[in-house]
């Protein structure tokens, strides 16, 4: 239909190879930022993003629309790759090798900077969308590394209340990251 945008699910399941590229375009920046915030290293984040999309390409024939959004499905793969990376100490490249993808072993300076920016921007954008009390608590505890007791003192409340705000804020962020389109 002229003017309408295909859904993630349509792009993922399309037989047109370029549609997988469009699916990639929609998610690569957030996924790179998602990985970079967790592993703290742009090269590893790039490797994990490549492996995630390669796995998605291999497995997309098994994706069934309905139960989970395509983006949520993609992040399910990403979580798997991340857990594997933590356990191995490095990113696997099994799916990239299976698809014979030819990628650089290390990023250049521009790409490293781009991924670091994505990590900061995407995290802050998500945190900004939290309710005010949760946003302030998460920023203070996670970004500024402040103790619960110190935050509680400045907010004139109890450490338990701050702990709850941080916990709820992080839970919201996890949910949003898991299904974000």
């Amino acid at each position, binding site marked *: 239909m002229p003017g309408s945008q295909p859904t993630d699910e349509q792009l993922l399941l399309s037989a047109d*190879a*370029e549609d*997988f*590229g469009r699916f*990639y*375009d929609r998610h*690569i*920046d957030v996924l*790179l930022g998602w990985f970079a*915030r*967790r*592993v*703290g290293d742009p090269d590893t984040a*790039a490797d994990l*993003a*490549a492996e995630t*999309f*390669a*796995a998605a*390409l*291999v*497995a997309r024939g*098994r994706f*069934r629309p309905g*139960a989970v959004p395509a983006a949520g*499905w993609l992040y*399910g*793969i990403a*979580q*798997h790759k*991340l*857990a*594997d990376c*933590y*356990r*191995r*100490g490095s990113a*696997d490249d*099994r799916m990239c090798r*299976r*698809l*014979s*993808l*030819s*990628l*650089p072993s290390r*990023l*250049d300076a*521009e*790409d490293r900077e*781009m991924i670091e920016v994505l990590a900061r921007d995407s995290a802050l954008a998500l945190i900004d969308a939290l309710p005010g009390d949760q946003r302030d608590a998460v920023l203070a505890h996670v970004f500024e590394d402040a103790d619960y007791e110190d935050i509680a003192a400045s907010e004139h409340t109890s450490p338990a209340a701050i702990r709850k705000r941080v916990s709820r804020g*992080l839970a919201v962020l*996890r949910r949003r990251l898991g299904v974000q389109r």
Partner: protein
Amino acid sequence: MSTYRDLLRAELVAAAERPLPRARPSRTFVLRSAAFAVAAAAVALAIFVLPWSVSPAPQPAVPQAQLPGEPLFGGSLQAGERYRTQHLVPSISFVATGDRWFAQDTDTSDGLLLQWREGRLGSSTGRELAPVLFLGFLRLPTVYDPGTLHARPAPRDLVGWLRANPDLGVTGVSRTTLFGRPATQLDFRVPTHPRQTIPDCVYNVVTVDTEPPRQTPCAAIAPNATPGAGSAGRLLVPDGPDPLVVVQSSFDPKRVGEIVRDSAPLLGTVLIAR
């Protein structure tokens, strides 16, 4: 525009235009599965040591196409949901009886590893739950040749081979049931310093969620059986030709009882395609 993003996009689109290559049995899968390693060892020991006197009450055969459940992909599992594997041979179906099960390596035919996760991974930026306990379903077609680390077909006298392997630490053997069949239960504890380990293979073990992971080497038992040094657990080996053994393990020997307890309800829901 980013060079890397463009290059990766071009490679993926080009790959999407090609027929997908067939999956090969994964060697690395085993290298990364600490729990599975022990399972392999247990198989041999059980066959060698134990009598086969219990009358079987086998589970009803379920054709693969009729296994119930949602297709299993890697990632967190939804409590109460039934899943069916897509690549494991034979296929199984099970219910995720808890809210912290995580499926790993769901695209290989030799094994399936489920993790029970809690706490946080050690990185200050990481917010993922840490895998602390493991439940594995494993086949064992090959073993490592002692001294050379070359994979070769599992020996005919697998039990004898395993018993002679100092990197297996079976501490107890008893009888039990698994999937409605008589089975052998083997408790094990992998040595802290295995004699033979896999080069470049380490596990990042999270025992205290506020501390960085510690690294531990992988004992070299078989390509899909490389338990972490110092890990412990229990192997359940069904009698007869059933190829799947079950391993319940932890990097922390004191927590083996937890995975045995927490995985029992899930094991009670398992259906196997015949």
